[in-house]
């Protein structure tokens, strides 16, 4: 029997994989360095949690999480569509601060820093996912479907246009293509999947508060995307597995959890720095950016 702890790690891998491949779609395939990604995760988690606490069934909650996150994705794409590089990153960063501030301060809806406890474990058409092993299967199924859909998008002619935008947006426009529309879709699709990941997270942990959705939580995801290599979905999945497991030995060596938390963050941030310095294309990266 697989140990309970290992199942827990596998569930995290599944959730992080969705977070990372959806960011990879925006960052690696379209060149959108979207620091607002974590906000869509928050929006998905809160949407799903709030609906579930109202008694809505899980499948409705998770779909709504994806759709509401997607709507916010569309929304963010509008003011940012002319921004490039650092300005784009800064604008999406501001967006993530706004969403964080709303989640923290709209206490009537989110209970602010107190968070939302008691989020029910999923039941789909009578099938109960309270058991972690069942939840793992659900997570992997959702992650697999997300992977296949994003893979299909990136290899389709539509995906080729996205990659062309990453390489040279003006040249795409000169060929007569509406790049605003392309980025609008990408924002929505990327946000949809990360919204779904947020829902899974909320129903798995059964408690969410604003601290799960800060920029700190995005750093491991960015690290995964860069280590996996821009433009590589396979690399992203492999990097997810490695990075989720990497800090685990700390626990077995016997560090207290009060140290493990910050240590993880330092490890991820350091890794990001090292990879940017020594292997900027990551391990499976196909893309060279000027």
């Amino acid at each position, binding site marked *: 029997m697989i140990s309970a702890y290992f199942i827990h790690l596998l569930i995290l891998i599944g959730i992080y994989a969705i977070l990372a491949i959806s960011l990879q779609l925006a960052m690696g395939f379209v060149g959108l360095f979207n620091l607002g990604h974590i906000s869509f995760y928050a929006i998905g988690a809160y949407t799903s949690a709030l609906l579930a606490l109202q008694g809505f069934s899980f499948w409705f909650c998770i779909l709504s999480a994806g759709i509401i996150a997607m709507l916010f994705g569309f929304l963010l794409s509008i003011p940012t569509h002319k921004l490039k590089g650092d300005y784009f990153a800064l604008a999406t960063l501001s967006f993530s601060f706004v969403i964080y501030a709303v989640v923290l301060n709209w206490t009537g809806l989110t209970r602010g820093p107190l968070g939302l406890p008691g989020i029910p474990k999923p039941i789909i058409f009578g099938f109960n996912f309270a058991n972690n092993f069942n939840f793992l299967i659900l997570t992997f199924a959702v992650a697999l479907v997300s992977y296949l859909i994003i893979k*299909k*998008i990136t290899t*389709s*002619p*539509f*995906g*080729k*246009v996205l*990659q*062309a935008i*990453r*390489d*040279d947006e*003006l*040249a*795409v*426009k*000169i*060929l*007569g*293509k*509406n790049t605003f*529309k*392309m980025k609008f*879709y990408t924002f929505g699709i990327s946000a949809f999947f990360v919204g779904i990941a947020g829902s899974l997270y909320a129903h798995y942990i059964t408690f969410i508060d604003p601290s799960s959705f800060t920029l700190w939580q995005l750093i491991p995801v960015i690290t995964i995307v860069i280590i996996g290599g821009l*433009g590589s979905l396979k690399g992203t999945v492999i990097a997810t597995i490695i990075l989720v497991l990497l800090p685990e030995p700390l626990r077995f060596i016997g560090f207290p959890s009060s140290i493990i938390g910050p240590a993880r963050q330092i490890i991820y941030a350091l890794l990001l720095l090292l990879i940017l310095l020594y292997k900027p294309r990551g391990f499976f990266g*196909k*893309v*060279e950016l*000027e």
Partner: protein
Amino acid sequence: MLKIQNLKKHFSGVKAVNNCSFEIKPQAITALIGPNGAGKSTVFNLVSGILKADAGKIIFNNKNITNSSIEKISNSGVSRLFQQSRLFNNLTVQDNFLLALNNEDTKFWSSFISLRETSADKKNKAAKILKLITMENFADTLARDLSYGQKRLVELGRAILNPHKFLMLDEPVAGVTPKLREKIAEILLMLKNRKETILLIEHDMNFTFKIADDIIVLERGKVIAKGKPSEIKDNPKVLEAYLGE
């Protein structure tokens, strides 16, 4: 085909294009020449909608396209080559070509649902252009791995493939070997035989005089002369503009 009327574009004091007017005849090669900084590329950027004009009008096929969006202008039939390389570097030569063919690929659902591969017709068109630029063996090469000359050829091919009624080429032969220069001249003359309308920016007078039907000379954002190559050759104003550079 293309009519430019009193076009004006200033960059904080620099009068890049200053009351510029000219007209392009269809089915001919017109060359836009002039010393460095004369405003040639700026005229191209205004026509293709990358820059907004301060004043003046751009009429294409009897339609006012002044300050239209880049995509709209492109889809009304203007294709162009940039002075600096603008290939999709992380895509293959073939993909660079397929992207130019039409805009079906920007439709999400039809692209997502469609299980069929890129149509044979599209691939045929791409293959033809590969042959034209004699790069048949490079279909699957990433654009970033090409030499400078090959990049220019692929970009020229992409501009030709992009559906158009009017082709604007910004220094297609600058910096390439004499041999490649010959080849590009051949391609342009072949296009002319196909009744294409081309506006060409070229710094090298010999090259221009050899292939252009009409010449427009720009200096400091203004047209200082226009006519047949033979008329331009001995025009003292043109000689002065070039020699005084």
